Each structure stands twice: as structure tokens, then as C-alpha cells.
């Protein structure tokens, strides 16, 4: 069963932004100060363009593996799929470490055992074995959950925000802007998450435009969040990790009613839980597609991938910030290589083949 256009739009508008709320805001604040909106705006525009390209690839109704196998043969196509799955597993690491830190900070007052996060992998392994239709239906539910959660957090925070803190514009300079654009690549690879879904959604006329616009809409929500975040914390924004869980607590009603904002925070955290599984799900989808889709294979892959990630997470347990810094600041080039390079290259190859075939037909 294929995904519907609506489900893809829901994912782009209301699930994808959930993965960028944990550590990225403080990273941006450290690199660009009050100019944090501009690099993100550029990232959103670039990703929206890439989302457009990936959705356009879906017009043929064929999966990326099938198209690659036609072009370069099955052996090479399988090798490329393995490489792409390896990238997705690598890309999964930042959201996973973030999620682990968030869980330890948000859900426990007392210091939990470092395996408290481990049950996540059981859930992730289960989700990876589910058919794609289930993922699409989950997005149907998550979209309103995220919108309600985010709206709630923003409404409770906006009273404490001083948006004047975002001025004057341009203080970070070109180098700050460039560095923050580069170092936030680890959070913007949504186009790559869509690649394993190519050929598995109903392409309707205008879907590429709609998808890109939905991504922009999600991007606007993210920008509104970042503006409010900086408005609330201003100069101390750098030190505010997991800001989305803290910025609403200054609302005056909280004192009397308790932390009612937790309802909205939990709603966003709930959506985040699903977003974090997306790269692993994509890796399982990619390999399953290349090596014959069977239930045992999907189960083995999902257990295997999640097991490997759990092991890596335990190995790097005591140096999470160094791990994130290594991925986002030193290995940042890997993300655009795959997230932008692969869709553009595929689109270029398709376009060349299309033109060649049309010429052949014309002759």
C-alpha cells in the first residue's frame, strides 16, 4: 500500500520540524547570536528545493533502487543502496544522541541509568518492521499533535519573549553565517529521508510543489519557534539546551496551575520520538528494497540496525557533546553530499535519459 500525497505533506509540514528543536537552537545561538534565523531560513529554502526534486523523482512511480538498477546494473545499484543506508544510519546518530540527552533531562528529575533510553530501540525496531502504510497513518495523527503542542508552547512563551533581542541584524557577519549554515547541516537532511519513499507514494499533479510548500510551512513554524526562543532567553540562549521544554515555564499561570505546559511539551516530544526513527526506518526500507522485500529480512535488518545504534550509543555514552560536535562540525560535509547530491544527481540522470529518449522517438 502506497503513501498518500496528504501524508507526505503532513510529514513535511508537521513532523520534520520536530527534529530540529533540541540542541540546534543553542548551537545556532552560539554561532550566530541574534542572527540565528538567517542560516535556518537558507537551510529551509535549500531543503524545500531538494524536497521538490525528490518528489519529482516519484513521478515515474519507480523506486530509486529500480531506477538505479536500470542505469548501472543490479550489483552497482545494491552497492549504492548499502552506501545510502550507511549514510542514513550515520545521520540517525545526531537525533538519537539528542533524544537521549533530552530524555535524561526532561523526563527525570533524578539522574536515570544510562540504559533508561534503551527501550526506545525496542519501539524503533517494531516500527521499522511495520508496513509503510502504518508510517503514513502515524503522520496523519502526528501532524495535529505537533501543531497543537507547538502552538501551545509558543502561546505560553510569547508573553515572556522580547523580539527586540533579534536586532540588530547582521552582527554575526559572513563567517558566522557561513559556519552556522555548515554546522547545522546535520539537522537538515529531510530530502534524504524522502528518497527511500520514492515510488512508494501516489504521485499526483503538483505534488512536488505542494510538498515544497508544506516544507516551507513547517520551516516557518521552526523560524517562529527560534525567534521566540531567542526572544525569551536572549543573551543566555547559548546555555539553554532543550529550550522547547523550558521556554514556556515563565508563563504566569504556571505558578498557580503547575506545569500545564508539559502537556504541550510531551506532545512535541511524542512527535520527536517518531522523527528519530525515520533515518533507521529509511535505512531498513532502502536495504529491503534492494535485497528483496521479505518479512524476515525486514525484521533482521530492523533488529540489527537498532542493535548497532544502541551499541554505539552506549559506547559514546559519556561524551555526547563531543560526538555531536564531531558529526556536525567536522563531518558536516557528508550530509549535503547525500541529502543534496543524491537527489540532484538522480534528477540529472533522469532528465538526460528523458531528453535522449525523446530525441530518439523524434528521429
Amino acid at each position, binding site marked *: 500500500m502506497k503513501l498518500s500525497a496528504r501524508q507526505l505533506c503532513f510529514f513535511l509540514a508537521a513532523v520534520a520540524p520536530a527534529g530540529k528543536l533540541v540542541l540546534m537552537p543553542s548551537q545556532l545561538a552560539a554561532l550566530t547570536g541574534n542572527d540565528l534565523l538567517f542560516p535556518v531560513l537558507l537551510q529551509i529554502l535549500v531543503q524545500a528545493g531538494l524536497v521538490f526534486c525528490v518528489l519529482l523523482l516519484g513521478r515515474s512511480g519507480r523506486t530509486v533502487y529500480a531506477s538505479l538498477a536500470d542505469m548501472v546494473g543490479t550489483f552497482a545499484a545494491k552497492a549504492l543502496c548499502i552506501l545510502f543506508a550507511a549514510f542514513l544510519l550515520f545521520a540517525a546518530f545526531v537525533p538519537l544522541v539528542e533524544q537521549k540527552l533530552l530524555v535524561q533531562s526532561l*523526563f527525570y528529575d533524578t539522574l536515570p541509568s544510562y540504559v*533508561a533510553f534503551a527501550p526506545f530501540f525496542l519501539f524503533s525496531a517494531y516500527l521499522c518492521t511495520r508496513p509503510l502504510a502504518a508510517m503514513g497513518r502515524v503522520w*496523519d495523527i502526528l501532524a495535529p499533535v505537533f501543531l497543537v503542542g507547538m502552538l501551545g508552547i509558543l502561546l505560553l512563551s510569547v508573553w515572556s519573549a522580547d523580539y527586540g533581542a533579534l536586532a540588530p541584524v547582521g552582527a554575526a557577519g559572513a563567517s558566522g553565517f557561513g559556519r552556522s549554515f555548515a554546522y547545522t547541516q546535520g539537522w537538515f537532511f529531510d530530502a534524504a529521508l524522502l528518497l527511500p519513499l520514492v515510488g512508494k507514494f501516489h504521485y499526483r499533479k503538483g505534488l512536488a510543489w505542494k510538498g515544497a510548500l508544506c516544507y516551507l510551512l513547517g520551516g516557518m513554524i521552526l523560524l517562529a519557534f527560534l525567534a521566540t526562543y531567542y526572544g525569551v532567553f536572549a543573551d543566555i540562549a547559548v546555555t539553554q539546551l532543550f529550550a522547547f521544554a523550558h521556554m514556556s515555564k515563565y508563563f504566569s499561570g504556571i505558578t498557580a496551575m503547575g506545569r500545564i505546559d508539559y502537556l504541550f511539551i*510531551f506532545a512535541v516530544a511524542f512527535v520527536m520520538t517518531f522523527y528519530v526513527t525515520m533515518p533507521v526506518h529509511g535505512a531498513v526500507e532502502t536495504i529491503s528494497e534492494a535485497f528483496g522485500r521479505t518479512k524476515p529480512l525486514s525484521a533482521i535488518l530492523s533488529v540489527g540496525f537498532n542493535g548497532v545504534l544502541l551499541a554505539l550509543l552506549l559506547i559514546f555514552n559519556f561524551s555526547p557533546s563531543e560526538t555531536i560536535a564531531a558529526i556536525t562540525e567536522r563531518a558536516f560535509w557528508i550530509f549535503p553530499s547525500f541529502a543534496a547530491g543524491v537527489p540532484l544527481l538522480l534528477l540529472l540522470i533522469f532528465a538526460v535519459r528523458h531528453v535522449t529518449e525523446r530525441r530518439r522517438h523524434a528521429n
Partner: protein
Amino acid sequence: MKNVNANGKESAAALKKLLPAQDILQFTFSDAAGREYICFFADAITDKDLLGEQVFRPLMGYAGEPETKEVAAHVTAPEVRTERALEKLAAEVLAGNPVLLWEGMDDGLIVGTKKVPMRAVMEPPTDVAIKGPREGFVEDVKVNTALVRKRLKTGELKIEFLTVGRRSQTSVALCWLEGTSPNETVGSIRKKLNAIDIDALPDSSYLTRFLSDRPHALIKQVGTTEKPDIFCAKIAEGRVGVLADGSPIALTLPYMLVEDFQSGEDYFVPAPRATFTRFLRLFALLVAIYLPAFYIASQLFKLQLLPVKLLLTIAGSIQDIPLSPSLEMLLVLLVLEILNEASIRMPKYVGMALSVVGALVLGETAVSAGFVSTPAIIIVAFSGIGLYAVPNLIEETSVLRLAMLLVAGSVGTYGIILLSALVLVYLVSTENYGVPLVAPFAPFIRRDLKDALVKFNLVSLKERPASLNSPNRRRQK
């Protein structure tokens, strides 16, 4: 010998061999021509007055030909059938319909004078309505089909009788509206019913496992109702109904989770009120599932969840409790479940005493003795009440509540979120007869939202739910 023949005594002896039970009686009489008739009937489930009046009396004055057709014409009972196969004749006797055999017959005569003891049509205790019809199904499938036919006076209403159960030979009625219910669904249900090979079918609940696409599913996949008006409304929407003899609970398929948040009364009150009630039910259900779990998680792992004053009150009340918070909650929850189970099964008057024992002895005394804290009792009571806001989902939600509690006590709030995510994935993956369990929310079907949680005015509900794939989409102009 498999069939009856012209030798009445020999046929009667063969039938008697098939019916050796003591409650199967034999009555012999002669007509005006001196021909001997042997009547087989089951004691207590046959209307003997009617049998004497409509069969014995007219035949005693009969002196015509012995052909079954002729004899049948002289019987004044409105329901008369003929049958040759001895096994089928025996089955009719066991069902309460007397069988007549005589010399010179070509077929046995079945007379429909069944009189099964049954209770009157009354309001079902599990589905009480303040506004709206009060009739409820009874244990007789014929009466139940009559209640359905009374509400759907159309030739499009098809009622097909099947027999399920090797020994119980239970009549099962498959009801649907031709042209409104998808043929594939009807065919699929019929096929599943015909494939059932079971000794006895005491209740329609036995059928639910056979009719589910996933028999081992953790959540129910067949809708149930005791009210004919709801049953007919569901059939009119494009569902298929199943009635089983001996059970007042009717089944409807395919089932969607949202059905249990709707009640018959929602359609007899203004739409805003119905919407409010539906949201209230959802809220009550969420409170029932999550409140004990969040209470435990907040105590053990995340104290900030509670306002400071409430936190101080709770801290004061739990300081001398010897049990850990999760064990304490588990204990109180277990007591509630036991009380609930016992009060349902116990005789009415003992049940009242049990309530007193439960409320006063277990509640008051346990708190004053310092075994459990007052907040734990309040939370479990609140959760228990919430559970009954959606009575058709009690089995599933009470298990889920217990699972949430265990996860909250071991992993904390994050465990609750993970388990909720797991449940969500499970629910959205479940389908029955091609209809997703969580429709119209996942997959999102905007048109069907008019009668999901938000209830639109009846005049706006022009089309049948798209999720049911009915071939006849329009229900009003």
C-alpha cells in the same frame, strides 16, 4: 436408513433411534380412516396447545388420501414444511418443531409450533438511553430479526440464516442491505461463518474471534450492540450485522474504534451537546489510562509535573506508607479490579453489601491503617469511573492502564510516551475487512470527520462514511 418411507412405524423407529433423549416425546393418534399418526416433539419447547388445536384436532376428522400434500392441506398451522431426510427431521424436533409420520406418507411433516421460553424485549442493562428507543435484543434470533425488520422495512434488507456449531446447531443470521454493504465484505463474512468448525456456540462473542482478520489482536475488531436501533443504523451505514441464536449481543462489521465513542443518544440530542459528550468520553478514557501512570511517574521520576502545593499535600500523605508508590498503586488497582469483578458476578443484594465493604472497610480503613495513601485511592477511583465512560472498551483499556502503570513505575514518563507510541503504531496498523481501525483519523478522511468526535448536524450527514467503502455513498438528498 437415511430417509423416511411409506412405512410409518419403521420410519418412526428410525427417528426414535436418532432421538433417544427422554424429553423427546412421542404421541400416537388415529384419523377418521383409522390411519395411525406418530408425532415427535420436544417437551417444554413445543406449544402443545397449538399442536393439539392446529394439528391433532383437524387430522382426527380427516379420512382422505395418505399423501403428504393432502395431509398438510388439512393441518391449520401456518408454518408447515415437508422433509425426507431423517437427520433433518431430528434436527427440527430438537429445535422445537414437531414432526409427524404416518402410514403411506412420502415425506415427514414439520409443523412450526416452537415455543421457546424467553424473556421479553426490554431495555438492555448495558446500554441505557435517556432519550431514544429502549428496545433491546433478546436471546431468540427470530425475535431479533423481527426487531431489525421492523426498523428496516425494505426488500434490500437481506437476512441469511446459517447454522454454526456441530452439536449446538445454532442459527446465525447474517444481515445486510443489498447495494449498500460492499459485496466483498458480505461474501468474506459468509465464508468465515461457513468455515467455523466448533462443537457449540453458546454466545455471539464466540463468533468474534472467527470473524476477526487478526484473531490474536490485542484490541477488539468486531462492533457489538444490544440495541436494534443502533444495529439498524450501522447496517444502514453499510456495515454487515450478525445475530446469533441464544445471544442478545449483535455483532457489526467492519469495526472502527470511533464507534465506541459514539452512543445512540448522540443522534437524539443537539449536535454541539453530542460533540461535547464524545470529547468527554475521550477525555475520561485518557484519564482512566494515563492518570495512575502519570501519578506514579511524577512521584518517582519527575516531581515537577505536579504543582508545588499539591506536591506538598501528596508528600504529607505518603510519608508513612510502607509500600513503594508503584506497588501501592498496583495494589489499589488490583483491589478495584477484584471488587469490580465480584460485584458484577454477585447477587444484587450481596453486591450492595460488597460495595459498603469495598468503600468503607477497604478504602477508609486501609488509609487510616496507613497501608495506602488517600491520593492513591482518589486517583484509582477517578480512573475507575473514567473507564466506564466508554463501556465497550473496558477490557482493552483496563489492560492498557495496567501496562502503563508498570511502565511508569519502571521507566517513568518516557516509558509512558514510548508505550503510547507503540500502541499508536499497533492501532494504525490494524485493519478489518479492509477498513482501518483508527479511520477516519488515520488514514485521515476529512468527509468522515462529520460524525467522528465532532458531531455535525444530521442534515449535514448526506453521505455514508467513506471508510466503509459502501457502493451506495449517498444516504440523503
